[in-house]
Every structure is written in C-alpha cells, then in structure tokens.
C-alpha cells in the first residue's frame, strides 16, 4: 500500500518569508495524483494544490507552488510571502487514478506564521 510521510511535525516562518514543507511517498505506480490540503483551526479541509504525476511541470497556485521530484518520490510545498492566514495544518496526500476508493494522507505539518 502506498504510504505518505511528512517528516516535519511543526514548522514556523516569519511573515512575508518563504517556507517549504516536505512530503515523500512510497509507490510502485507510474501514474497518480498528489495533493496538499490546508486545515485551519476551523478544521475545514481546503485543497491548496494538486499535481498529476505525468506532468513534468510543477503546479503553481498564486503564492503556493510545489517541487515534484518523481524519481525521488518527493512532493514539497513552497509558500511564498507567508501571511498570518497561512497558519494551519498542512496535509500531503496521494491517490491512484485507478483506485477511487482511497486517498492516503500524511500525518500533517503544523505551520506557525510569526508576525
């Protein structure tokens, strides 16, 4: 079974600075989807960004971008110009396109933004 590992339980960043959250995964598949979700104190799970494994270009959504290294099975999230509202738990997730019954999540990284 695929596993997702987030090795940083907690991270902190100064407001307006850049932070990178790490995620690695284990799979034998060649095609899959990767996601980052944000969970603020409200506990709502909010999709931040998604990446299809067959795409070589790294996904970008405004201040959020990923560094997808397929061979290394690494999928890090970079947050630029950090804002106080970015403070949240961030979860990395993996899903196989041929498997509609599951998405594997990492344990999460708690991001603190310092003013």
């Amino acid at each position, binding site marked *: 079974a695929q596993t*997702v590992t987030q090795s940083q339980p907690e991270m902190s960043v100064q407001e307006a600075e850049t932070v990178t959250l790490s995620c690695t995964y284990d799979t034998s598949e060649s095609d899959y*989807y990767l996601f980052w979700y944000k969970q603020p104190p409200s*506990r*709502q*799970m909010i999709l931040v960004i*998604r990446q299809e494994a067959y795409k070589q270009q790294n996904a970008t959504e405004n201040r959020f971008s990923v560094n997808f290294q397929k061979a290394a099975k690494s999928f890090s999230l970079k947050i630029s110009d950090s804002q106080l509202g970015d403070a949240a738990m961030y*979860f990395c997730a993996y*899903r196989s396109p041929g498997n509609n*019954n*599951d998405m594997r999540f990492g344990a999460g990284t708690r991001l603190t933004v310092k003013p």
Partner: protein
Amino acid sequence: DAGITQSPRHKVTETGTPVTLRCHQTENHRYMYWYRQDPGHGLRLIHYSYGVKDTDKGEVSDGYSVSRSKTEDFLLTLESATSSQTSVYFCAIMDNLLSGNTIYFGEGSWLTVV
C-alpha cells in the same frame, strides 16, 4: 464550495448508543467517502460509496456501517458507540469531471463518546 453538508456538526453521546452522521451533497457526485481524523494519523478512510446502494469498506471500517439509498445522501452509523470512536468525521466527494478526480471535504462532524 463542493456543496457538501454534514449533520450534526457536533454531538456528544454515551457509550453503547447508536449514532448516525449524515452527509448531503447537491451536485450529483458518484463517489462519496467517510473519513475520520485523529491526532498523528491524518485522515483515514472508513467507508466509501461508488453509487446508490454500492458501498465498500475502507482502512478503519470496524464498528461502522454505511448506507446510500439516494445519490445525494451518505449515512455513517456507529451501531454501538465506543470511546475509541471519539473523533472528527469528514464526508468527502470526488469530482471526476471538472477537477481531475480531486476529493473535496465537508466541514466535519465532531463526535464525543463519553
């Protein structure tokens, strides 16, 4: 907004009592899921549905049952609640057409079993 509504949002119940959580969606998605979230575990799949009356087990299905009699509703039942089922429960749907099989979540239901 994926049009997902969970009810109740908060519930406290006693050990041994049955509990049903409801997930309602408004956009006719085929796939629906129930996850639970516990510290240190991220989210884990309990059960999922791939159509009306079509359901299957996930990673942590023991002690839970589900039903889907209509496309829009997916019910999660704890037949006899235990303290280990104290958790936050998330319903989710998968959007196949517009967003490339992305899973979207409801707002969560907080369940405390005392």
